[in-house]
């Protein structure tokens, strides 16, 4: 039986833990709101860019020549793993890492190199995987457009110079507060845009200035950039969402624990009082006898 003091101490500890998890939950909620808004606001641009690409594909008769479209026999793959820098976000990181582990096993037939985004992926893979070529960490839970661009430049250069034949992105897509999809998506080469049938008649007389090829030349880097930024934004939103849920659960569990510990404390206190009473009564009886 725990003594009164012990139980009291434990109650205090659990209560202070609860305060911390409660604060973390609220911080995560605020960050989630911001990053969710960022995801929403980035969508129109990505959509319009996709549309423009497919209009270009319809309008230009010539075969599109841009290095990002070039499909080569895949001898070497690059996997970009996007997770969080910080922990305490439930199964957010472990779910994704389990998926990438499986992916690595399935693609053993080719050379694989890895680019890790987020400290957790680096911590996990630096002992398990020996070909990490680049590490981007310390994002602070928010996007930095300059660094994202740096990452894109690095990846596209590697692809264009033939260092790698295929680049895949592993990230968590934010579907809703309670649903996150882990996706491993091909990043490069970009699948050739195809004209959707119903549009082809109306847009075939587009004017291109200067030429569709040159517009591709300018459009593709934007496209690559946008795709990466989308993936990062989705991942950050998922991270904050997961953390909010995890911390919410922790706060609730701490509350339950405080309740049961309080019960235990009260029982112990009662037992002690009963014991003391008994001692007093039996002492008095002995005197009277």
């Amino acid at each position, binding site marked *: 039986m725990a003594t009164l003091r012990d139980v009291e101490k434990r109650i205090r500890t659990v209560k202070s833990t609860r305060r911390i998890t409660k604060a973390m939950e609220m911080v995560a909620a605020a960050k989630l709101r911001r990053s969710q808004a960022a995801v929403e*606001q*980035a969508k129109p641009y990505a959509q*319009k860019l996709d549309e423009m690409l497919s209009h270009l594909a319809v309008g230009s008769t010539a075969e599109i020549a841009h290095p990002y479209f070039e499909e080569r026999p895949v001898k070497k793959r690059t996997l970009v793993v996007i997770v969080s820098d910080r922990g305490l976000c439930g199964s957010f990181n472990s779910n994704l890492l389990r998926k990438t582990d499986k992916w690595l096993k399935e693609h053993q037939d080719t050379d694989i190199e890895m680019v890790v985004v987020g400290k957790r992926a680096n911590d996990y893979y630096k002992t398990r995987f020996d070909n990490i070529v680049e590490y981007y960490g310390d994002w602070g839970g928010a996007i930095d457009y300059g660094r994202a661009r740096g990452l894109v430049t690095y990846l596209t250069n590697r692809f264009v110079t033939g260092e790698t034949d295929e680049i895949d992105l592993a990230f968590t897509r934010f579907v809703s507060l309670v649903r996150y999809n882990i996706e491993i998506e091909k990043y490069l080469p970009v699948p050739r845009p195809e004209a959707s049938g119903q549009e082809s008649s109306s847009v075939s007389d587009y004017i*291109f200035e200067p030429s569709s090829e*040159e517009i591709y030349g300018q459009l593709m880097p934007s496209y690559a950039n946008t795709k990466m930024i989308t993936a990062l934004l989705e991942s950050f939103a998922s991270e904050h969402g997961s953390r909010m849920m995890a911390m919410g659960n922790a706060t609730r569990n701490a509350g339950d624990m405080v309740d049961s510990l309080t019960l235990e404390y009260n029982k112990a206190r009662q037992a002690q009082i009963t014991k003391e009473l008994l001692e007093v009564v039996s002492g008095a009886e002995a005197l009277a006898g």
Partner: protein
Amino acid sequence: MFRLSIVTPEKVFFEADIQSLIVPGIEGYLGVLSNHAPLITALEPGKIEFRDANGQTNYLAVTSGFLEVSGNVATLLADAVEETEEIDLARAEVSRDRAWEMLKAAGTGDRSIDVKRARASLRRAQNRIRIFKTTH
């Protein structure tokens, strides 16, 4: 009247019906009125000018991007746009000078410099300064 929407990676910057539009196309400034033929063009750093539904002329600075016109809808995808009031002249001048220095250093054989980037940065800064001067 036709619809103009200006979209940047961060947000939808502007969306409304307007009367006319002038943008810095890669082969020179071009004007768009209603019922323009379908068009896709790349943009240069420069000045966007449009007349809104009330006949008021507005100016924006654009760094680079694309314009698509089709069926009385003009979609402008811009890397970044700024209202002319937002332009920070001092900052633009600093970055212009920095770009100049970098290009000069590159001219004297410093290989660590990304010339393409410095040039682009110079053009953006010059563009901001020019627009600031024409609208203030």
